[in-house]
């Protein structure tokens, strides 16, 4: 059956479709600062509040707000103000917002940013503008190296290398010998695999297959069929977000869950994917700098307060926001509730030694990346919910940054 469609060709349809899909979909969400008071300290918060990473951005800002609220929005008697800007997870927008915060709003410190694409440019910018920036995201290995260390940029979250390298050691010691590696086909997905393999293969284990899928792959069936054919003892995956949901679910649907261990970079099985993954996630091993089930008073208090405040389950991003805020607040406190100059603030941040829901943290002077615990986790059923419990802890892990 064919019907006549006057005036329209496939090409016009295609042109209009692609043009439409290419248009920007992001309104700007701006949180106005409170009315200025006598010399308050201003924290410029940057996070993607619209666009693909909107959900992550919201979790991070929730964590940040919760910490400052716990301190009654003040430090040593000085008020703290938050100026929140939406980066839309776009490099040019992120840089523009950073400029606005530094040059117009005159903030005392920059806090935030998730996308690594923004991270590279922003690190250059804060060095020129001489403004301290503590990032709660931007995990790409290359952003914080010895070679590009500068006194204004700090990373309180993690590097991809830092989280994945201990996992290779642990998995090899657990007796896994043959691994099939897979991940999204972009820098982060590959960096995670490289870091894992470095230690895993050093222990004599081998890689029996690899495949990198395009970001946003809907159907993993062809790859899963290949995995089934190769029959490794473990699959190590670096998927995140909706890719992680689909990969873990389809892995189980194809019946691989019972014969092959699934393990990966922490985002593969995190608190924000469990609801959608359901039972398919149970038993997945993963490594990250936090786990819901860390059994310390600091973490338990954090989880309880977060669930009460937002009526939601905290994720690793909520914790990242919370810890970033902790770092900034402690530096303010060390300086007696004021920032005499940015050099003093930078020094105060560098000397950070605090206990967080993620355990003790400090900064590496060579890279200004955080030194912290890495947790090997397993997803387990916990009543009606699924959460990560801690199987092993690697203490004070640092990224060599070379």
């Amino acid at each position, binding site marked *: 059956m064919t019907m006549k469609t006057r005036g329209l060709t*496939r090409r016009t349809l295609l042109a209009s479709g692609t043009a*439409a899909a290419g248009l920007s979909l992001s309104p700007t969400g701006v949180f106005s600062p409170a009315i200025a008071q006598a010399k308050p300290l201003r924290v410029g918060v940057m996070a993607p509040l619209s666009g693909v990473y909107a959900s992550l951005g919201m979790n991070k800002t929730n964590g940040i707000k919760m910490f400052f609220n716990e301190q009654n929005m003040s430090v040593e008697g000085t008020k703290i103000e938050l100026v929140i800007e939406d980066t839309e997870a776009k490099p040019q927008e992120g840089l523009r917002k950073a400029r606005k915060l530094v040059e117009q709003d005159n903030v005392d410190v920059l806090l935030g940013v998730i996308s690594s694409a923004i991270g590279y440019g922003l690190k250059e910018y804060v060095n020129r503008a001489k403004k301290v920036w503590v990032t709660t995201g931007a995990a790409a290995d290359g952003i914080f190296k010895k070679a590009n260390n500068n006194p204004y940029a700090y990373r309180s979250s993690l590097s991809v290398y830092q989280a994945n390298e201990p996992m290779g050691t642990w998995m090899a010691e657990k007796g896994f010998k043959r691994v099939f590696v897979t991940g999204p086909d972009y820098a982060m997905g590959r960096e995670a695999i490289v870091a894992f393999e470095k230690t895993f293969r050093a222990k004599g284990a081998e890689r029996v297959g690899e495949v990198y899928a395009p970001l946003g792959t809907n159907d993993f*069936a062809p790859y899963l069929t290949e995995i089934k054919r190769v029959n490794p003892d473990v699959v190590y995956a670096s998927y995140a977000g909706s890719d992680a949901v689909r990969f873990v679910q389809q892995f189980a649907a194809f019946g691989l869950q019972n014969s092959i261990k699934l393990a990966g970079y922490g985002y593969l099985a995190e608190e924000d994917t469990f609801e959608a993954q359901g039972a398919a996630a149970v038993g997945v091993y993963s490594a990250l700098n936090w786990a819901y089930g860390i059994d310390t008073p600091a973490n338990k208090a954090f989880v309880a307060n977060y669930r009460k405040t937002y009526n939601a389950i905290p994720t690793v991003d909520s914790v990242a926001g919370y810890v970033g805020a902790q770092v900034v607040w402690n530096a303010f406190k060390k300086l007696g509730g004021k920032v005499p100059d940015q050099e003093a603030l930078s020094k105060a941040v560098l000397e950070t030694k605090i206990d967080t829901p993620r355990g003790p943290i400090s900064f590496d002077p060579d890279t200004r990346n955080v030194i912290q615990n890495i947790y090997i986790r397993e997803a387990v059923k916990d009543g009606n919910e699924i959460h990560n419990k801690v199987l092993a802890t690697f203490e004070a892990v640092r990224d060599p940054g070379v």
Partner: protein
Amino acid sequence: MLDFLIAQTLNGLVYSMLLFLLALGLSLTFGMLRVINLAHGAFYLMGAYFGLTAWNLTHSFWAAIIVATAGAAIVGMLLERSWLQRFYVRNELDQVILTFGFALVFADIMKMLWGKDIHSIPVPPLLSGAVQIAGTYFPAYRLILVGVGVALFVATWLAIERTRTGALIRASVADRVMVSGLGFNIRLLFTYVFGFGTAIAGLAGVLGAPITGIYPGLDFEVLITTLIVVVVGGLGNISGAFWAALLIGLAETYGKALYPAAASFIIFGLMAAVLLIRAWGRDEEDVE
């Protein structure tokens, strides 16, 4: 090797049917009403969310299917009645702007109602097992999906080719003034056809949810692939959409298995090839 071929062909068929379910609604409204509905992806996501809510309330997959299909149909018919009907006489650019505007509005409303998190609907227990085919296990739910796709194709094709309503629809496509001059209510007919198209999109959303998940942004991801299938198949051509879905689904699956690095290029390459070889498009051939 044979195992590999059978397994990957099955994978390809499943993916093809998901693509076909998406393309069917779009191709149909396009063929009948000559309207490019860029909100089609939104109806897919809307169906998935309607289904999710129904599932959360009843824990029944069948309820989810009914609510998703009916919900998408109702919203679709309302949209057609209140806005689209006035745009039939205007040029395609106006229609594109209108439907794209609605795609954005729907996306924001869905974010407000269902949040920004990733959700999923579990496969019903009856279909959650695996079936043994040629020495390998295959998820039962995926096989059912192939059946649903083929059944919908045959049913829609028969309805349009062999029934009185189908004849009426075809006649109105050829000359709508003449058909209404003969005393038929064209406007109502078009509303139903549009509603049927969005209903299929909603159905695809809920059936696809256990595989693709449900999250903001899925609507536009889905729209692009659907447009490619519709373009390759020929605008408004239902059997064309079916074969195009098969071609693209199988090509992409084999591509992923054999040359993973080139997988994302394959469907665009195919589309370019089809446009080059048959540049005029099937839509400008004669009506059968």
